[in-house]
């Protein structure tokens, strides 16, 4: 009941007039306090301290989460009421201290009142609950976020006294914290790039720090296209590569491990190939050398020349290797696509093509495998797949051409048929003439 009654009170606090209809629903003591409240509220709304409230204990403006704080802090109250914390029974006082049962500013903001926590204190404040195994166990939530945060780039700077770094509330929100599976949450997959981009897309801030505007770079990548254009929630966001609470750029030697989380086959071939063997320590080619770090792009023939030339500019033979692999792959893909187009032609005849489709699917599987195999930067490894795909494409093509050739045989049979038909006409004509000859003179 208290929760429902608090609604008109809020409207009064905002100066609304509709609340005047509500008193009929309220018990008498409430009416009395409302009458007093109507006079006092404009003053309360300005949060002027020191207003005496004679009827402070009347439960008119309380709610389980925000207590009576919402009387003076309606915006925060509305935000907080929607949050996961309010749902789980966390109160204003859990973070801010003070007394939420008092409408008197002096006592409400009295003993143990923390006010707005300082930025440097935020992680520790959140950790007071979120690092407690006992408190988090019912929710099956991890408790290592604070420890992880301290290892992150953000946490290390904060420890050094730089408060212009992300703390818990910058990513999760202060009052309106939602679980990450909620699409409205700042930490929902689709919103993560923008959440990080609030700082990492702020070019003035990043310029001060001497960092690139990685948000804009990311938005140009194949990952962002997959995430936003195709709505694939499995596509990687910032946290997929940098970590969540322990966010930090991966070490140079670790890039292939990070990318290899998803691109397993690519990493396997990469590690078997010459590029990996050529690495000395943390120096040497890794994923981002060709694909870029944030502007991740698929290898394209027009990009190959540039990225290979970074290291192989003097060695023309090696420089051409990328293009040769690419040409090999595309000629095989062309064969398979030609076979697929021919299948469509056979379908229009129509011929039975289920078996051809199955084989084209198989050939396409080889082609898809050839792309990861290219990361071994060895022609024969790629050719192992492209040759198979190409020969399957050839096979299907020749078989369909064979069947279409049967259709041409139909036309040959048609010529034979016409011979037969003309003979039949001759026979019939002979019958007719015979009948006419014998019919008229002989028979009566």
């Amino acid at each position: 009941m208290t929760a429902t009654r608090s609604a008109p009170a809020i409207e009064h606090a905002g100066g609304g007039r509709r609340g005047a209809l509500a008193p009929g629903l309220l018990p008498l003591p409430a009416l009395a306090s409302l009458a007093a409240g109507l006079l006092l509220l404009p003053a309360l709304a300005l949060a002027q301290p020191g207003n005496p409230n004679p009827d402070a204990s009347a439960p008119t403006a309380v709610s389980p989460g925000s207590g009576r704080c919402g009387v003076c802090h309606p915006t925060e109250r509305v935000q907080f009421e929607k949050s996961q914390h309010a749902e789980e029974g966390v109160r204003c006082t859990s973070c801010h201290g003070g007394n939420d049962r008092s409408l008197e500013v002096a006592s409400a903001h009295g003993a143990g009142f923390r006010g707005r926590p300082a930025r440097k204190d935020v992680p520790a404040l959140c950790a007071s609950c979120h690092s407690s195994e006992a408190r988090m166990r019912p929710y099956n939530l991890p408790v290592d976020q604070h420890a992880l945060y301290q290892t992150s780039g953000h946490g290390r700077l904060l420890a050094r006294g730089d408060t212009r770094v992300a703390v818990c509330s910058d990513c999760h929100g202060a009052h309106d914290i939602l679980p990450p599976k909620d699409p409205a949450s700042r930490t929902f997959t689709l919103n993560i790039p923008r959440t990080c981009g609030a700082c990492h897309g702020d070019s003035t801030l990043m310029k001060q720090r001497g960092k690139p505007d990685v948000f804009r770079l990311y938005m140009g990548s194949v990952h962002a296209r997959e995430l936003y254009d195709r709505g694939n929630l499995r596509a990687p966001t910032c946290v997929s590569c940098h970590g969540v609470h322990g966010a930090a750029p991966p070490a140079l030697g670790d890039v292939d491990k990070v990318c290899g989380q998803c691109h397993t086959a690519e990493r396997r071939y990469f590690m078997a190939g010459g590029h990996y063997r050529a690495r000395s320590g943390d120096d040497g080619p890794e994923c981002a050398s060709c694909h870029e770090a944030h502007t991740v792009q698929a290898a394209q023939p027009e990009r190959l020349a540039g990225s290979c030339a970074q290291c192989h500019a003097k060695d023309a033979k090696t420089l051409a290797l990328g293009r040769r692999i690419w040409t090999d792959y595309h000629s095989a893909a062309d064969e398979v696509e030609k076979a697929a187009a021919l299948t469509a032609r056979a379908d229009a005849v129509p011929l039975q093509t289920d078996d051809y489709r199955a084989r084209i699917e198989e050939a396409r599987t080889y082609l898809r495998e050839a792309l990861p195999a290219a990361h071994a930067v060895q022609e024969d490894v790629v050719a192992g797949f492209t040759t198979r795909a190409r020969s399957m494409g050839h096979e299907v093509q020749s078989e369909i051409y064979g069947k279409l050739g049967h259709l041409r045989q139909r036309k040959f049979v048609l010529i034979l048929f016409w011979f037969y038909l003309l003979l039949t006409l001759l026979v019939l004509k002979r019958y007719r003439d015979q009948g006419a000859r014998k019919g008229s003179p002989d028979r009566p």
Partner: protein
Amino acid sequence: MSATRPPDPNGRASWVDWLERRINLSEIFSFLTHFGFVITPVDTSRPVREVLREVAETPVPKYASGPRVLGLLTAILFALEAVTGVLLAYYYKPTPEAAFESTRTIVRDLPAGWFLHQMHAWGAWLLAAVVVIRLLRLFWDGLYRAPREVLWWTAVAMVWLVLQLDFTGRLLTWDAHSYWATVRGMEVVFALPIAGPILAFLLGGRVVNDDVLIRFYALHVMVLPTFYAACVYFTFATLRRVGLSPAPEGRPEATTTFRDHLYTMLMLTVGLFGVLVTLATVLPFRFLSAADPYVTPGGVRPPWYMLAPYATLQWLPVPAWL
């Protein structure tokens, strides 16, 4: 075609005599004459062989030639359509889900299915052309005057029926082109004043869906062919009454025997069959993919015979309330 076989020359006892002793074959044969296919009346008290001989020697005008052949072709082609149509109906399933699949099964997977399908399609094409040309020729030669009004109105009805058969049959394959051709054709039909709403009611609505498909199927395989057969009967029966159309002016009426006429007709049928087989093999009708009510392929237009009413409607100031 046993009626056309010449009697056994050596007078040996044949199966005809054997059967004659048990059944009155001439009476059975006379059903044909009553139906109108044979020119002379038949004396059912005489043995069938004599009757046949008599019929065979009946002098008839030479009508399996010149413009008169058109009337014969309408009957022959209809017979072909009936036979192939029945065979196709054995495998066809008139539901939107199965229509295209079953047609493709007939054309692709069944032995000789493609042949029957193409024969049916090309036969329909030729039949539509033949009935229209026949109507034009009847009009041109003034053959709609008394006592030939029945023939004229029958010819008009046959044109209408064939066009409807073509229109309903086109939808049945349920491939993208046939579906959208039907949708556009239906729009033309429904835009007609007065008749449009009535047709929309009879065809099960303005949206081409499963209701319309099953009604088209029923019309195509049951209703319309029955009417067409009735028209053929009316034509033959009236011909017996009023005689064949007169020979072109200035030329004597050539006469021949009925046997001669039957052989000529048989040769005509064989020739026509050859033409159809050639068309079906060399220029087969193609399939697109299955119809998708939400994707319109390019290049779809109403069937050719719909173009005239379509163009007319574009010009006619049809009041909006219709």
